[in-house]
């Protein structure tokens, strides 16, 4: 049997000489010809009369993919999505915080105390784990429930390929794949999702570039930080009636800065370690389709919102326990957290941050969403302020940004700290889920490390430069 199979292959090789070498092209031609003939027989068009939908599609495309109007429209759409998210998420967020933190937290604590649970257990589980979860839910759920449907709406309508079309030229100029524009857009929702989406890029080299740079897309978990800090430090720089727009503008600027960084880093990578020519790809601009609202609500809530939220909760609970522990386990009279903060402060000051922020980022690796609550808790701890918050190591968030501002200023924060925190929030390691996803997608420890460490190095450099410039001019 084996010999006969080899004989067929040999025979085919022999015959191949007889038929010539462009058989493949001839076959394709034959197929195309048949397809054309058949379609001519069965398709009829009636273009008479009214403007067809195709013309409307062309008209929209002329505007949204135009060399001059395409990019501004893209940024405006992005800004509108952010603005709706920021404004809309406010009320449900504070409602959830009221229920989960102000009402349920004391109740649960009383329950544990009445069951005579030891103080360390109550602290770690309720003040640590539960509160972390409660914060993640109340801070993350509303913006996600608004952002994801809006994003899916644009996707269902057919706008995403146009984004790729607009960005394609820019990405190609930096040596990356045009489809990276799509994975970057996905990253605005969630970097882990963006990293998975990089599968649409065939060339392994360009896929790596897309994966490594996806973290520069400001993800969902990082907006609350951006929004809060922007409204405290940027919103305060302008008259109150402009505060909302100025803060939203600052957040959009950070997001745009992220895109710029993704381009710069892609450029650097494709000229050094990941050298090569960008591969061409054909992108078909699909027709615009009326979005199906119910379908969008379902998929964006179930597939995206709940999925991402659940992941955050899974990471937030143990992180909460760690936060409570480092703030309550004492070595030589002061807590581990304070030891670290005191040690890290001088280094952190060099880059315009402080020890609290550094520690918060280390603890919050599992989920970016808990950075702000952790910072507040650690600030109180390091200031030994009494009367604010619920005691040592208890995460809390204050309903009124003015209270937060006051606390932060007491902790030595300036506008520089705020700006640097926003920059550092954009430029630091990906969350642990994203790191794990990068490993799963690349199967390479080396590239996972690059993707993890590169943003931190950049973040430190950028914050250092900002700080030095700030001192130079003030």
């Amino acid at each position, binding site marked *: 049997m084996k010999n006969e199979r080899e004989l067929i292959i040999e025979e*085919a090789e022999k015959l191949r000489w007889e038929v010539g070498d462009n*058989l493949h092209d001839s076959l394709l031609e034959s197929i195309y010809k048949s397809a054309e003939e058949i379609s001519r027989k069965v398709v009829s068009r009636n273009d008479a009369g009214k403007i067809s939908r195709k013309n409307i599609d062309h008209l929209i495309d002329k505007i949204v993919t135009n060399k001059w109007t395409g990019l501004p429209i893209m940024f405006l759409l992005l800004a509108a999505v952010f603005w709706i998210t920021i404004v809309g998420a406010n009320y449900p967020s504070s409602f959830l915080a009221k229920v989960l933190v102000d009402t349920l937290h004391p109740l649960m604590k009383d329950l544990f105390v009445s069951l005579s649970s030891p103080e360390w257990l109550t602290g770690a589980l309720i003040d640590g784990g539960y509160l972390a979860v409660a914060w993640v839910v109340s801070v993350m759920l509303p913006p996600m429930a608004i952002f994801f449907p809006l994003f899916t709406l644009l996707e269902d309508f057919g706008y995403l390929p146009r984004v790729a079309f607009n960005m394609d030229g820019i990405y190609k100029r930096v040596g990356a794949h045009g489809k990276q524009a*799509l994975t970057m857009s996905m990253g605005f929702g969630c970097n882990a999702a963006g990293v998975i989406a990089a599968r649409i890029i065939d060339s392994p080299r360009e896929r790596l570039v897309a994966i490594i740079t996806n973290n520069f897309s400001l993800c969902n978990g990082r907006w609350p930080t951006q929004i809060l800090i922007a409204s405290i430090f940027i919103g305060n720089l302008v008259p109150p009636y402009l505060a909302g727009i100025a803060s939203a503008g600052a957040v959009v600027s950070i997001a745009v800065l992220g895109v710029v960084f993704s381009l710069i880093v892609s450029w650097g990578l494709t000229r050094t370690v990941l050298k090569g020519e960008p591969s061409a790809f054909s992108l078909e601009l699909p027709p615009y389709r009326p979005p199906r609202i119910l379908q969008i609500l379902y998929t964006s809530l179930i597939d995206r919102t709940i999925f991402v939220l659940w992941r955050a909760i899974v990471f937030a609970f143990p992180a909460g326990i760690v936060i409570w522990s480092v703030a309550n386990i004492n070595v030589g009279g002061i807590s581990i957290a304070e030891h670290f903060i005191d040690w890290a402060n001088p280094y952190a000051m060099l880059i315009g941050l402080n020890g609290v922020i550094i520690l918060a980022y280390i603890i919050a690796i599992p989920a970016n969403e808990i950075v702000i609550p952790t910072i507040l808790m650690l600030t109180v701890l390091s200031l030994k302020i009494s009367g604010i918050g619920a005691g040592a190591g208890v995460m809390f968030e204050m309903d009124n940004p003015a209270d937060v501002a006051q606390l932060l200023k007491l902790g030595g924060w300036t506008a520089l700290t705020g700006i640097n925190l926003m920059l550092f929030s954009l430029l630091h390691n990906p969350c642990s889920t994203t790191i794990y996803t990068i490993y799963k997608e690349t199967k390479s420890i080396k590239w996972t490390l690059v993707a993890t460490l590169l943003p931190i190095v950049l973040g430190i450099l950028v914050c250092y430069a900002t700080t030095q410039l700030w001192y130079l001019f003030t």
Partner: protein
Amino acid sequence: MNTTHDLKNLVKLGIDMTNVDFIVALAGNPNTGKSTVFNSLTGLQQHTGNWPGKTVTRTEGAFSYLGHKYKIVDLPGTYSLLSTSTDEEIARDFILFGKPDVTIIVADATRLERNLNLTLQVLEITDRAILCLNLIDEARRHNITVDHVKLSEILGIPVVPTAARQKEGIPELLETIHKVVTGETKCNPYRVNTNFRDIAPAVEKLESKIKVLFPELPNTRWIALRLLEGDQKIIDAVRSGEIGKLIFEEMEG
């Protein structure tokens, strides 16, 4: 009288793929609504999006219809099965080696000619196929009419016009799937004319040898053409006997 013509007979089974009777493959150009068809049959909510290239790997689900249980495989969208990108290979390998009982080709009714390129290539590989003429609502809006009866006559396979986003035509599609897998409807697919440049003798020579070696293969001519072209993947499959082995396994099973 016609009880099959009803969505009530459809049981969406999601990802429960135990003890399936038939395997259905879902092929088509990118962004023609394959995933939407897939979702409406399985009840799964695989993410659909209006951009090409969204389905990067194959996705599987199941449904049951009139007492038969089906596994359905959503293949990545491709424009062709003849070049060598990963997604095209995944799609082609499944239609060839996965031995689906029926392959549904989802085509965009507003861009029929280009979609037929893939359709004709699928028909070269498999005997049992259905053309799902999707986005028929969009075609109506663009004032495009497709004579699906005539198309079915030419192609030699059933053609079902659908608007999967609106669930239009899904009952008819199910009924057609049922008829094809049970043999009630026989397919006699259109084969592209390859009798050019006097290659016919060479193809026939190879084909007859393949037929002797793998008598159960339905698409010997296609294999012969690939061998003539020097398609490494097919050469390897012939060399290892993989092409024939799968068929014998299926016969025993």
